[in-house]
């Protein structure tokens, strides 16, 4: 589904109540159907806030988000989010975690069983159906979280630094798996990341933010064929361009 973000402004009350802290300032962006778009920028620049606004978990002060022409007012199950720290239900097994959303939606047992089986095969966790989250590695937990989102047949997948807590090998593996999932072109994906290599590896377009308040510094289209070669000259060129954008001015602060 296409997402149209119009003049979003958002600020938070400071911790010491001394006033408002502007997070997003007049952000506008159009995301087309089935596009993979990444939000890159320094931490605390408001890119996660924007993602939460798209999800409907936060309301902007002004501006709007429209999904296929319908304004976003509250969270809905066709926009599912994946978090950095997995946020699984610790008291539920892998299969029950994946089934949770379908259960909430009142789907029948037979449908749920079929969907969960499909999801477990998709993420390659056969044999772990009855395991509890604390028995799984970080990469496995994130696979479960992704499966939990995808069984809902979302039109939009929102990912908030999903691989940020993983070791680099697991991270690359999951990135490749995500490329395969997205190749089926079933949903639009918005990814928040601070990892420029990850952004280039996965995205059709990369939005570089500067903070704060966040504004869009540059939007970069990545036209490299998939699966992308992380060590090719073109790949590195795009990555370095993003790095130079996100690190410019950094020395002033250090």
């Amino acid at each position, binding site marked *: 589904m296409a997402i149209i973000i119009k003049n979003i402004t958002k600020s938070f009350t400071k911790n010491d109540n001394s006033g408002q802290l502007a997070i997003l300032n007049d952000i506008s962006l159009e995301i087309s159907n089935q596009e993979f778009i990444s939000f890159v920028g320094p931490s605390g620049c408001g890119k996660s806030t924007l993602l939460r606004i798209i999800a409907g978990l936060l309301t902007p002060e002004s501006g709007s988000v429209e999904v296929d022409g319908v304004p976003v007012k509250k969270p809905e199950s066709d926009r599912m989010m994946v*978090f950095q720290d997995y946020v699984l*239900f610790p008291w539920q097994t892998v299969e029950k975690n994946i089934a949770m959303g379908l259960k909430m939606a009142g789907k029948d047992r037979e449908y749920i069983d079929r969907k969960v089986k499909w999801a477990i095969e998709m993420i390659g966790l056969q044999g772990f159906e009855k395991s509890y989250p604390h028995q799984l590695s970080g990469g496995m937990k994130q696979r479960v979280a992704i499966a939990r989102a995808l069984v809902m047949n979302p039109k939009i997948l929102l990912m908030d630094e999903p691989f940020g807590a993983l070791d680099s090998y697991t991270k690359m593996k999951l990135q490749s798996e995500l490329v395969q999932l997205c190749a089926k072109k079933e949903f639009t994906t918005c990814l928040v990341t601070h990892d420029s290599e990850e952004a280039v590896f996965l995205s059709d377009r990369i939005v570089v933010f500067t903070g704060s308040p966040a504004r869009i510094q540059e939007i970069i289209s990545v036209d490299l064929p998939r699966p992308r070669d992380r060590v090719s000259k073109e790949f590195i060129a795009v990555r370095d361009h993003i790095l130079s954008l996100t690190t410019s001015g950094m020395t002033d602060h250090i």
Partner: protein
Amino acid sequence: MKKNVIQFLQGCAGIAGILLLWTIASKTGIFGRIDQKSAQLLLPMPNVVAGELSEMLKSGYLLSNIWVSMQRVLIGFGIAVAVGLPLGILMGMSTTLRNCLYPVIRFFSPIPGVAWVPLAILWFGLGNNAAIFIIVMGSLSPIIVNSLQGVLNVNQQLYDVMHMMEASHWQVIVHCIVPSIIPYIVSGFKLGLGFAWRVVIAAEMVGVPKGLGYVLSVGRSTANTSVTLITIISLGVIMMLMEEVLFRFLEKRTSKWKTWE
């Protein structure tokens, strides 16, 4: 299995140590503080107490009074749970309700349950109702406070997940809040049950007829130290058994998924 056996034997050793200390204290007149003769009266030997215990068990006197106290505790504690648990959860979910009720609970919670005894006897007379009222007053606040704390500590992102799944309020309570707060509930219930027993004994000692506290006070007024000691031992055993029966099940369930992070 072997580890369990060792643990059991170590527990037995602890109990044996206490019995040994008791015997020595009894023989030496509480380490020379009182003369031999009074010592036999004031701190009888374990075997004498055991003899008295079997007498009391045979006559049914001990068990019938334990049952009286137990009923009071179970009813009072049951009411405290039925009121405190939902109230604690609702206070956790609603800031308005929390702000309204928290000062009230903070005011009442440090007041010992026993302090209600005079009023309870005046209001409800010398009977079960007075005891139950006191138990409710004594065990309500730890149950409310712990369930409230549990709700406040629910992982906020789990709510995000529930909302994206378009879960109803009821579904959020059942599938997210209640399982999250089970460890808090267990510790609240344990505290509450401890308070319940404490206040029921105190209430029975100062006037509410029958029950274990009544046995204790009769033992005191007839200078029968064996009875006093038996009551103390019974209380310990009852508490241990109740914790096993009521909480072991819940703790076993949560230990399957609970990891301290």
